[in-house]
């Protein structure tokens, strides 16, 4: 049914339609509305039988999820930012144990300085944890991906993270088609655990494994991700056939066929990029031939699909909201691996960190530079060079130069925050 609905509520409703049996989460912005919505559905009995457990931390939330998933219950949680980092040890553990937990990450920057706004630093920090990571471009996709995520997770017995941009998606009210319960039931069979804590068939889960088999266990995690590389597009196709919408999959291109410049991105910025590209190409399509490639599956990383989508282009701009300090882009590294040997010109653009608005104007300016091959290999979109320079000078001049964030705020003319 078509609804004008907040992204978080759309996710809460589709998670509910997936019939979770245990939900356990700890509040953090911008994830809160999702679990609040689910909490209400559980409390009102609409989801029965389902247990909603209020825990004392994200570490506990993921740990409860591990227990309930291992005991055979369909399990859901959600978090963001500091919360994801706080649960990190258990995040790795859940995938190591092969537990099909589904978790929404309402993407948010990681402090310090503390910042509640959107970028992708949080889920990228868990890049290598063994979870499947799917990125939603808009709220319809965010909602639909959750139904697909449960199916994928349970078929492969591995956990899936659905990443959606905090606030930009979670708090945006958009039109979303929420499927009917019987449609979801037909798509998503009940959870049949691969391994389960069963008194009639006792198994030990999580044994201590030494050098003789640890490599093999880790390799198998990789092998499963490669299997997911096949299943993700298949499940997206099955979903499309049943629900009549294309969402998910590995990558999706926009105006890439004739493009010599392709911008690669994840998440909600894909929409802004499409609009920018349309404007640059112009109504007569006589502008620069730019296309957009959205990556919807970040883990497993679709090397072949990315390569196939980009190999005809001359240059690739990876626009990403994450940043590997001391190197450059996180996603760029993966994209360049996919393009190795092709001789394409590659650019990394870090944008939107901590919720900095990514405007069409800035994107257009940056893309014109890229098309003219004048873009530096690593660009920080809309970085205020003046205040950065001033702080570097300050630090060179005096060792006790003071707290960086507060200095920058003062330079910007914003009153420094004070604890009263």
């Amino acid at each position: 049914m078509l609804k004008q609905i907040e992204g978080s509520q759309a996710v809460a409703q589709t998670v509910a339609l997936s019939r979770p049996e245990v939900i356990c989460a700890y509040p953090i912005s911008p994830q809160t509305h999702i679990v609040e919505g689910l909490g209400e559905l559980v409390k009102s009995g609409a989801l029965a039988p389902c247990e909603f457990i209020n825990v004392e931390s994200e570490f506990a939330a993921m740990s409860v999820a591990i227990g309930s998933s291992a005991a055979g219950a369909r399990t859901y949680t959600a978090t963001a930012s500091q919360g994801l980092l706080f649960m990190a040890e258990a995040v790795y553990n859940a995938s190591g144990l092969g537990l099909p937990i589904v978790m929404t990450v309402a993407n948010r920057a990681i402090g310090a300085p503390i910042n509640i706004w959107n970028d992708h630093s949080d889920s990228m920090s868990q890049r290598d944890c063994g979870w499947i990571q799917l990125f939603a471009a808009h709220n319809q996709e965010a909602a639909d991906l959750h139904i697909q995520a449960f199916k994928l997770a349970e078929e492969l017995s591995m956990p899936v993270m659905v990443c959606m941009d905090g606030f930009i998606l979670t708090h945006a009210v958009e039109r979303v088609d929420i499927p009917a319960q019987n449609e979801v039931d037909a798509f998503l069979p009940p959870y049949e655990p691969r391994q389960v804590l069963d008194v009639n068939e006792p198994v030990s889960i999580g044994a201590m494994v030494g050098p003789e088999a640890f490599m093999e266990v880790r390799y198998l995690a990789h092998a499963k991700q490669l299997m997911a590389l096949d299943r993700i597009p298949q499940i997206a196709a099955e979903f499309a056939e049943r629900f009549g919408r294309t969402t998910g999959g590995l990558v999706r291109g926009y105006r890439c066929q004739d493009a010599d410049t392709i911008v690669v991105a994840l998440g909600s910025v894909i929409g802004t990029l499409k609009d920018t590209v349309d404007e640059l190409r112009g109504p007569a399509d006589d502008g620069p031939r730019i296309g957009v490639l959205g990556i919807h599956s970040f883990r497993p990383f679709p090397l072949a699909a990315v390569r196939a989508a980009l190999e005809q282009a001359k240059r690739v701009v990876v626009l990403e909201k994450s940043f590997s300090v001391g190197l450059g882009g996180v996603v760029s590294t993966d994209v360049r691996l996919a393009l190795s040997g092709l001789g394409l010109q590659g650019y990394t653009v870090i944008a939107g960190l901590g919720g900095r608005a990514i405007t069409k104007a800035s994107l257009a300016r940056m893309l014109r530079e890229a098309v003219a091959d004048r873009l530096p290999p690593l660009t920080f979109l809309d970085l205020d060079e003046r205040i950065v320079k001033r702080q570097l000078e300050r630090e060179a001049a005096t060792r006790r130069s003071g707290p960086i964030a507060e200095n920058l705020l003062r330079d910007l003319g914003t009153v420094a925050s004070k604890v009263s």
Partner: protein
Amino acid sequence: MHQPVKFYQTGTFTVGNRLLAPEQRSVQASTERSNSLNSGHRACQGCGEALGARYAVDAAMRATGNQLIAANATGCLEVFSTPYPETSWQLPWIHSLFGNAAAVGTGIAAALKVKAIKAGAEHSPVRVIAQGGDGGTTDIGFGCLSGMFERNDDVLYLCYDNEAYMNTGVQRSSATPPAARTATTMAVGAHPGAEFGQGKNLPLIAMAHEIPYVATATVADLRDLEAKVEKAMSIHGARYLHILVPCPLGWGAASHDTIRLARLARETGIFPVFEAEHGEVTAVTKIRRHVPVEEYLRPQKRFAHLFSGNGHPETIARIQADADRNIRRFKLLDEAQQEA
């Protein structure tokens, strides 16, 4: 999960058990015991934790008709019992992390509850225990444990207290007693060993959560341990059992002294043995033969510095004062004994 059991125990205690009416016999005296933690694991000789865990889990198995699932924290018990590809556990068992056994237990209990409701029952016939060492319980896992208590989740948490982080090489935990030498509280300086006035008393903290059942036990009174586990399993909600399990390796004691030291810990008053319900103490095990703390400290190398050279009589006196305080607080001595 029942399998015939070989008897290892000999002597009058075993015989005595068999002379009792069947329903009064200890779990371990019966060949019908589940033998959930079976032989072949790699605990040190005389390991109190291995002994405590075997008795506790078998008792829980009997109390539940073998309908039991266990979550285990990282630590000696986990490492010595599940060296891949072997396992000593004959019940469904999961190890996730060092600090989350209580929360994993909560998750299992939640899943079981949903299954029970789907089957039209109020409670699941299958019950949950979570277990860990004192480090996993009093330190890193404390937040998860407190959360489990506060929500009154249907889990029995078993803490095997060997008073240090044994698995990583005997470092201090917040259950390490004052003056004890560990790898991180060395026997050097003016006040050698662990500090006085630090550490946590988990049974009292558990009581402060007003959960239905809290008890302490030692491996010196195994029948008492079994009885407490059985009682705990007769109750729904959060339950906590704190078991003193001497560790020959970490305490620097002889392997054959495990039981004796556990008994001395109780008979000195250093380790009060009691039960509490909803935050109130309901029963205590009285001291039968009251002994000075020195008798308990002397056989342990972790306290050797208290007796070498000029010794540390003032430190021993402080430990004695702590024991005396326990005796007063928990009324561990009969009035007649107190006067004597």
